């Protein structure tokens, strides 16, 4: 688990992976952003 | 082992000394300070106080909010006695 080790596992990755439908539509950017932190510059 | 753990770095007081003092009946920060000097060095207890509190809580079962904090008196930073005694530092405030 990411919160215990700093390394995302499959479950962590599943939480940010785009839906199957979106993946089938073509290439998509996946942002490594697992946690909601007080940070807004990318919005 | 406790005699190799320092609680008060300014006065070089070990955890063993702090715990023995509490077991001897001194269960407030003020009493402990008066007996073994922890908290009377340059940092004025800012480093050790929380660790002493933990020992008091462990031995007596007291809660954190029941442990009285010593009075914080000026000056809060060290000053030279020569400066404190300078005549131009003794103007009357009123």
């Amino acid at each position: 688990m990411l919160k215990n080790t700093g390394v995302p596992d499959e479950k962590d990755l599943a939480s940010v992976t785009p839906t199957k439908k979106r993946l089938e539509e073509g290439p998509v950017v996946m942002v490594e952003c697992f946690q909601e932190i007080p940070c807004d510059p990318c919005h | 082992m406790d005699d190799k753990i320092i609680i008060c770095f300014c006065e070089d007081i070990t955890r063993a000394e702090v715990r023995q003092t509490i077991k001897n009946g001194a269960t407030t920060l003020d009493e402990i300070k008066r007996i073994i000097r922890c908290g009377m060095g340059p940092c004025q207890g800012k480093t050790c106080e929380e660790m002493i509190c933990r020992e008091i809580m462990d031995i007596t079962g007291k809660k954190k909010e029941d442990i009285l904090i010593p009075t914080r008196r000026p000056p809060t930073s060290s000053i030279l006695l020569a400066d404190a005694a300078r005549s131009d530092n003794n103007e009357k405030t009123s």
Partner: protein
Amino acid sequence: MLKTDVAIVGAGPAGLSAAIKAASFGADVIILERDKWLGGQLVKQTHSFFGSKNEYAGIRGIDIANIFADELEKMENVQIMLETPALGYYEDNILTAYSPQGKMLKIKPNTLIFATGAMEKMIPFENNDLPGIYGAGAVQTLMNVYGVVPGENVLMIGAGNIGLIVSYQLVQAGVDVAAIVEALPEIGGYWVHASKVRRMGIPILTNHSIIKALGKEQVQGAVVAQIDEKWQPVKETAREFQVDTICLSVGLSPLIELLWQSGCHIVYSKELGGYVPILNEDLETTVPGIYVAGDASGIEEATSAIIEGHLTGCAAAKKVGYEVPKEEFIKARKGLESLRAGPVSQHIRKGLSLIRR
């Protein structure tokens, strides 16, 4: 005796933003700072900040300090006193300070903002007084302000944001970090920082604690073991790290000695890092005219310190009679609210709910 509308103790992010706000509405301001430069802990923060774009997100801490300093330099109603620690606060509302020339200064301010920040906590373990054991903040100052590395191999204790960021900066400075040891079951800092140090090959050992430092004249190693729910070492899990430096990043305590002297109401809050003053929505203590901003009112981070500075700067200027638009207060309070809205700020919200009046 010096008289002023607003006296501010501490020139970190909270104190500087408070000074800029108060002075912008016309108030005369005196800033007391014990260090040789403005910025407080910002000066050693070589990394870009998170937070809101409105509060300098994406800019390095040291650059934010310079932005504030440049702005203050243009203001004629601000007097900055460097290397001048505040010494005491007395019942006749006089603040004393110690000038670099050894003169005892007396200041009578109409309002007072304490932005005194925090100090690093210490923990007990065997041989914890060996040379080579540092606070993580001290190491960050050594490296990023004075250009001195603390050693060659470091063991970091604590996986909060400071522990994670300082570990990263140690590697940037060419120092090996053997591991980051965290007593809690979960990483306390932002996971994005944790992932970054993991990618550099630094292991993060949660549920682990330092048992003792090894060495005679200086640190030569450390023993670390897994701990159970009662914080007791688990048998046969002890392992040794060959390091010459141990870095402690085990939390901060608000620095509030002068507040105790003011007689304001102070309570203990575990969530906020220690003893903290009771404050109203303007961040005013129970003593009218005395305000607190930044870590001194509870441990958070620089962005909230900056906004709290704005709020107290506005409130102090208004208190002494200058006109401050309502919108300024609303903007600052909203900024704080949104900053503290997320799941990582849960403990802050809990702590604050107990100390707001």
